[in-house]
């Protein structure tokens, strides 16, 4: 694979409907993500996290600043690079094709791109599925799977493309707490197994600290980076780390910043309703 997946976001801005309501979603967002780094962005709902992710993925255009990957320009105003398998997204509400089997879903990327033979792709898919405890579901349709299973399958579908960057948009939002902790561990296991640059967004602080090398806190609208904290918890991590002293310290450090923003977002919401 060429390139290593170093992401550089410089002064990114996004204004929706500049002529009309002029909603500033992002303003002056700068963030450097090293190759192979697990970076988590935390922020209240509606702070522009998804807008930023969509710009990296190539789904949406910026109105200011630029994003580049491995020195190559990805997005800037007026320029929209097409989405591609080097930056695969795992969607908030899940986007496994419900009319295709699990095996079809996970192997379709490399097969459609012509990067693998069918036998090879299936073998790799089985190996990855087994790694997260999902053997034997290859011929099922996504509808028959549990929420946690679907999320794992979708992450594997992304990894099958050997992307430079994995983009995850609150992927575990709809899961219950117990399922969530298991799937988080599985994600970390896959990450340790084949390190990739990961850009993960969430509004759950514990999830952020548990997963990340670095956590970036985003402000509420207009979204900008408020604080970046390097998480120095050793890998591999498991659930026991959640009660460790260092984890709690991180939580305190970040918690205040996030709570402030959450309050602002809440008050802004109240104002809008009033």
């Amino acid at each position, binding site marked *: 694979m060429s390139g290593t997946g170093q992401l550089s976001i410089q002064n990114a801005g996004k204004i929706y409907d500049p002529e009309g309501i002029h909603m500033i979603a992002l303003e002056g967002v700068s963030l450097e993500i090293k190759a192979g780094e697990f970076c988590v962005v935390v922020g209240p709902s509606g702070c522009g996290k998804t807008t930023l992710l969509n710009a990296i993925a190539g*789904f949406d255009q910026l109105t200011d600043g630029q994003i580049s990957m491995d020195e190559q320009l990805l997005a800037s105003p007026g320029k929209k690079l097409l989405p591609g398998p080097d930056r695969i997204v795992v969607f908030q509400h899940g986007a496994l*094709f*419900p009319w295709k089997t699990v095996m079809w879903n996970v192997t379709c*990327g490399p097969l*459609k791109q012509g990067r693998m033979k069918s036998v090879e792709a299936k073998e790799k898919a089985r190996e990855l599925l087994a790694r997260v405890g999902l053997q034997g579901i290859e011929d099922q349709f996504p509808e028959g799977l549990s929420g946690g299973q679907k999320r794992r399958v979708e992450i594997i579908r992304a990894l099958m493309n050997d992307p430079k960057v994995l983009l995850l948009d609150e992927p575990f939002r709809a899961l219950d707490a117990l399922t969530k902790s298991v799937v988080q561990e599985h994600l970390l296991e896959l990450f340790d197994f084949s390190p990739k640059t990961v850009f993960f967004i969430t509004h759950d602080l514990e999830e952020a600290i548990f997963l990340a090398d670095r956590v970036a806190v985003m402000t509420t609208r207009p979204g900008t980076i408020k604080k970046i904290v390097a998480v120095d918890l050793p890998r591999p991590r498991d659930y026991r780390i959640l009660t460790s002293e260092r984890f709690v310290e991180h939580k305190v450090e970040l918690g205040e910043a996030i709570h402030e923003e959450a309050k602002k977002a809440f008050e802004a919401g109240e104002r809008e309703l009033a």
Partner: protein
Amino acid sequence: MQRLLTNIRIRQGLFGVACFFLAWYLLVDLFGVWRFREMPKLVVGIKEWLSLDPVFGVSLFTAEYYTHIWASIYRVLSAFFVATVAGIAIGILMGWRRIFFGLTFPILEVLRPIPILAWIPLAIILMPGRELPIIALTFLAAFFVTILNTLLGVRAIDRDYFRAAESLGFSQLQTLSHVIIPGALPYIFVGLQIAMGACWFSLVAAEILSGSAGLGYKVWETYYYVQFPTMVSTMATLGFFGYISSALVRVVGNRLMRWREKILAGT
């Protein structure tokens, strides 16, 4: 469990039909209630339908009966087939390509509300022979329904599926065959069920006015010649084949959409 359920359904259905016939028998044959006494008696109708030598010339055992059935089925099937192929193709193009939608939607919305009966003269002028105008009229309503439902089906596909396909490196053609068509299928099949009904509806209207055979034609012919028992049995035959054809559409739909846990209503 599944078998028991369908079994109960079947039994309920048969019971409902039995009640219907009983009511007919009581209202018409036995008591001759006001206005109902103008209806053909149930017993007379059934006797005529099952007769080897029917009074009015048509029964289960006469060749003419099957001539009419076959004429109607042939028209419905050919019209439905063309409406399905053309309607799905146009509907997908409209949902997929903005420019095609812009060009065609106003025309569609103007043509669509024109009732089938209003099309009859034009169809007769435009089409040669007797058969083609009938098939064209049978096709028309089904065609519009199929276009509209296919269009809605494509529109209803979650944007994330398109984004996922783009990310995964699908070509346009691969997106069409693996995202758009299967994604729109649930709506398409709802549309096809309605289209099948529209076919029978329009068929009868067309046959009444310009046919020389067919079940719709026969209904009116028997009315003119005051052969009411045959008229009613022909109507029942129309209903029966309408039911069977809709059920077939559902069966095909369920087979193609095994990934869905929810099945189309009524099967």
